[in-house]
């Protein structure tokens, strides 16, 4: 699978990030704008477990963004909350799902464990 967006959703479907809490429940529709139209994904979260469908369905919250921004989020290079503040992603529905994106997308690359910063070995 070479498409990074398909790879991202396939990974979500395979295994929900540990950071998604057990009681999280809701649906999100991702509308990704590309040069060849809108690519729509639907994610159902039920008690912390994720199901992904590659089609348009009703959702509590709709997240719309450009494919290139999404790809950078999927690499941890763009943080969802600041992207939302800059209007690089647009949300309809519940703001808590915008905050939840922080738990679906990867951490920024290259971050250090505080012990490493303090000159100690982590763990």
């Amino acid at each position, binding site marked *: 699978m070479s498409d990074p967006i398909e790879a991202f959703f396939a990974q979500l479907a395979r295994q929900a990030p540990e*950071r998604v*809490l*057990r*009681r999280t429940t809701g649906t999100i529709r991702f509308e990704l704008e590309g040069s060849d139209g809108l690519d729509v994904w639907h994610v159902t979260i039920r008690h912390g477990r994720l199901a992904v469908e590659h089609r348009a369905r009703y959702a509590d919250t709709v997240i719309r963004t450009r494919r290139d921004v999404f790809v950078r989020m999927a690499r941890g290079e763009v*943080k969802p*909350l*600041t992207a939302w*503040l*800059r*209007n*690089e992603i*647009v*949300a*309809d*529905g*519940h*703001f*808590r799902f915008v*905050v939840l994106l*922080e*738990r679906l997308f*990867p*951490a*920024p690359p*290259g*971050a*250090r*464990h*505080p*012990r490493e*910063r*303090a000159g*100690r070995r982590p*763990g």
Partner: protein
Amino acid sequence: MNQNLVRVLDGNVFVLSEDNGDIEATAANPVGFFDFDTRFLSVWRLTLNGERLTSLSIAERDHLQMRFFLVPGAPTHYVDAKSSLIRERAITGGVFEERLTLFNHHHVPEEFTVRLDVGSDFAPILGVAAERTPPGRLYRQVEERGLRLGYQRERFQRETAVTSSEPVRVDERGLTWTVRLAPRQAWTTTLRVRSFVLRPDGIDVRDRLERRPRASAEERQDDLSAWLSRTPQLTCDWEALTEAYRRSLVDLAALRYSPLTLPDEVMPAAGLPWAATITGRDSILTSFMALPVAPELASATVRMLGIDQGTVLDDFRDEEPGKILREFRYGEMVAFEERPQSPYYGTADATPLYVILLDEYERWSGDVGLVREFEDEARAALRWIDEYGDLLGDGYVRYLWRNERSGVANQGWKDSPEAICHADGRLPGPPLATCELQGYAYDAKLRGARMAREFWGDPAYADRLEREAAALRERFDRDFWIADRGYYALALDGDGGQVDALASNMGHLLWSGIVPPERAAEVAAHLVGPRLFSGWGIRSLATGQERYNPLGYHLGAVWPFDNALITWGLRRYGFAEEAGRIAEAMVEVSRFFHGRLPEAFAGYARELTEYPVGYPTANSPQAMATATPFLLLRALLGLEAAGEHLLMAPRVPARFGRVELLDVPGRWGRRDVIGSGLAHLAR
């Protein structure tokens, strides 16, 4: 920062102006109409026939509405009574509304030119105190009944729409009305200023998110009345306490804030006007202190901070998994990552304090549901203490910023750069382990153990936490106690050496319970001794320390919230007389500030100044100072939640006379607590 600015506000929507109602913002005078951490008006200047207006009087009540009575001319002129203006303003439904009424007091008809200059720089709140050239493009659009101002930077866009109910001539710099008035006639127009946080499709981002509509000014008035009638009623022979209590209830009502994430709940914001936002430490400690009067704030705080709990390592935000945030902001500098508050996690105390609040809330409310629901968050917070807070692996919570460009170096409540110092003034090398952080960690582990045993069905985890707490207590006493001085070190430095300044921090240790009983008397004696106790309160840093300065923010000033936590700690260790002395001093201080305890005041000795000297701080009310009278009352009345009961053990100084706190809410329903200034003599 000018303390005399006048304002109306509703959470993070507020207007600050001069006393004639005008707004002319500069870096030194950050007035304006603010919403969503952005200034939407920086110029709002009224003239009548080309003349500026002078205020004869201002009527202000409860933060909600205000009224300015104005006459043309400079203050040195005699009052020209031929005309006058009333400016009435409110925040209603999130909109800044201002009604202008012009009176012709003359016996002949007059023609007036009313002019309102309007402008906005769309400065983000985090940038208002500095000179700043906006990186984006500012624009203005003349419309039929008003003016539209805008700002765009890439896809980020803010607009201000100003409209007039009466016909008006509009140009790019403002609005002009020509008014002909017969003798003794009046003319009125209503101005509405709306802020827009726009998406690229022209819709306000907030309009497509589930949230309640912003309350009108009337609804908020009703809400305030309801709040005052459902919180406990206090009567006291010493009127100063009743006044401070009443003022705090009104201010706490104004500090209640509904975040976008939890639109149906209210948590306390840290301060008004500049800190009307989600914060960690301030919201937690305020909720803790307010438990006897408004326990619902604690539940909202636990929910909100749980949703925003750190989940990853992020150097820019000083974020680690399980960490509780320091501050969240919506403005431009945060959006474009010039500042890290999205959210910023650079504080080491909020995480253990989070666990403490959750446990204490359950003890008062009996809301077991919340403790079960937030088990994962509480466990993650407890894990943070050992995994990320313990930077050197020696069992102490320390801090070290990874964002050295726009982060905060000192990550306890004393967060100014030189706050943690040696008695001789030297600054210690990082990473620092301040003493109060160890107390919080100890308390968090014990409370975590109680929740694990009673509600999470995990006695093994409870045992482990209790063992860790006991080990921490022993280790702490060994490493922090300075035997020849009889007090605890302010901190350990990065090499494990004691930072030996005498400071208020160790007072929090009594609240946490980490102090062995045999040491408590020495600690208490220092806290109420002449070096720390000024007569008005306990100084943040003792006299005789090299960096002591009565005006030093964390180096000598007295902080009411700090005093409240220490008072409660003294009471817990049985020092009721000492606790009463501090509580009495605090209530006396409040009398000099119209019942409103300030964030901090100067550390001068009482006999030197005879009144407490105000300290120029940005926020008033400041939430933790606002909640101070509630915790002082708890200490005076000896209130503890135990099982299904509210325990009371009043020890009230004679000065207070009789103290009655009626209808204290909790798992017991409602209980009345009555104490008397002489009660303890009979025992």
